[in-house]
């Protein structure tokens, strides 16, 4: 009990705990769509792409850059989806170029203008420290926006994820729905980068969703479970990170992994079988149907 309450006397830990829990929940929630669409590599690429903008935001700490980083992320998200849609082979290469270039730019910005050392590690692996109230506010706003988007477009999102071609002719605006999902994804990555870290965000998109998939065959329940697993990983990971003195992102991911192993042990072969084909890049849901 002591161990749980003790760190709460520090304002920075309280903020860290809120952000970690909410971030875990948000990424777990969106991760369901990302994983089912076989898009986790896009999440991975995107977090690196956003890093350039994120570095600028961190270093110059002006609200103008928050906007800049957000637009940067959304622009790269849409660029990546468009490229990814056009051709399989070219997509990976193009994503590689866009994201690594942006990542390199972020690194360069940090090296040139940042205080070297800890700040850079924090950006890569997440940190409890230096979380401001305005960051919490942004995270809350993005979470609320995500909830509203999914709430009002639940069926459209589900339909385009499961069966885009039939969704298209059933009156669902497939392109618009996908663009919206990419915007939500980049915003979510942007506001969770501080606590999870650039290199580990993609893991938090994947792990809770996979765990949830092992536990259920229902889409609705998978969304709920994945959110819970993400939140628990964030909460527990934050405490462990405090006591172990390691970057928060690493512990959050490790807790998620532990949950995965426990669920695997419980569900066994049945759970494993459910994850077959999950996040398979070779099975894109986007079918080509265009004029010659």
């Amino acid at each position, binding site marked *: 009990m002591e161990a749980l309450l003790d760190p709460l006397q520090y304002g920075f830990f309280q903020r860290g705990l809120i952000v970690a829990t909410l971030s875990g929940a948000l990424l777990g929630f969106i991760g369901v769509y990302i994983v089912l669409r076989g898009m986790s590599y896009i999440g991975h690429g995107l977090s690196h792409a956003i890093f350039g903008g994120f570095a600028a935001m961190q270093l110059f700490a002006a609200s103008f850059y928050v906007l800049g980083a957000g637009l940067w992320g959304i622009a790269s998200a849409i660029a990546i989806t468009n490229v990814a849609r056009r051709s399989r082979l070219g997509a990976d290469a193009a994503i590689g170029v866009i994201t690594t270039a942006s990542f390199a730019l972020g690194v360069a910005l940090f090296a040139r203008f940042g205080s070297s050392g800890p700040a850079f590690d924090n950006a890569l692996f997440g940190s409890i420290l230096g979380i401001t109230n305005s960051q919490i506010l942004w995270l809350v706003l993005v979470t609320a926006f995500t909830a509203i988007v999914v709430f009002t477009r639940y069926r459209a999102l589900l339909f385009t*994820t*499961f069966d885009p071609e039939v969704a298209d002719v059933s009156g669902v605006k497939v392109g618009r729905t996908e663009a919206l999902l990419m915007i939500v994804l980049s915003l979510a990555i942007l506001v969770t980068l501080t606590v999870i870290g650039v290199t580990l965000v993609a893991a938090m998109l994947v792990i809770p969703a996979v765990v949830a998939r092992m536990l259920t065959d229902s889409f609705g329940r998978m969304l709920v479970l994945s959110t819970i697993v993400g939140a628990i990983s964030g909460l527990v990971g934050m405490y462990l990170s405090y006591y172990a003195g390691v970057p928060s992102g690493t512990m959050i991911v490790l807790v998620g992994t532990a949950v995965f192993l426990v669920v695997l042990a419980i569900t066994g072969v049945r759970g494993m079988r459910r994850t077959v084909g999950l996040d398979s890049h070779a099975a894109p849901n986007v079918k080509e149907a265009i004029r010659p």
Partner: protein
Amino acid sequence: MAPSPLIALKGVDAGYRHSLVLHGVDFAVDHRSFTGIVGPSGAGKTTLLRLLLGSLKPASGTVERAPGVAVSYVPQLETVNWNFPITVAECVQMSRTGRRLPWASRTERAEVADVLERLGIGDLGQRHIRELSGGQQQRMFLARALIRQPQVLLLDEPTSGVDISTRHDVLHLLADLHDEGIGIVLTTHDLNGMAAHLPDLVCVNERIVAQGPPDAVITPDVLEQTFGARMEVLQHLGMLVVVDSSGPGRLAG
């Protein structure tokens, strides 16, 4: 007098990025249609359905639709992602895109239950889609299509991979829907078990080779033009039976 068509293709060429698959297609669907599309693999049967559905735009020619016409599609089971986490009820509900809220309303739940009941899978709503037999999976997608109250129903190979009695059931079900005034177009590889029982057939091989009732199009000449192989056509108990003449006694299709 023929009713005015719900969907009409006129002089349509269509295909994909690299090549045209269909040439000069004229084809119409109305609420009296009960048409089977036959042809060899790669002939463009699914492509023709996509044109009717509207998911593929023609490269040239026109597709005319009656304003507000509701078209539903039942995909080929082989193309479905069976590992997707979704229950039968969730899958059927999904296509009711008019409603925005995630969960089903009371009337909607009743509608889903009704249509599943009607298709004989009323007690399977909470099952995962993979935990159904081939025939039940077919009915689930039929349920998803029907809950949108379509005027036209398009089905891609609705009887591939199901046994004879399921094929029978599907055929009867479709006949009932046809009687209710839903226009039906389906593709099939099964000349004897399926095509010969339909009132209207279209033979496709990159173009429309022939269209008409089975008596008129299931002939050795038309089949040879369509499939590129000589087949014999026999009469058996009033039914047409297609026999592959290269291997006596073996059924084609």
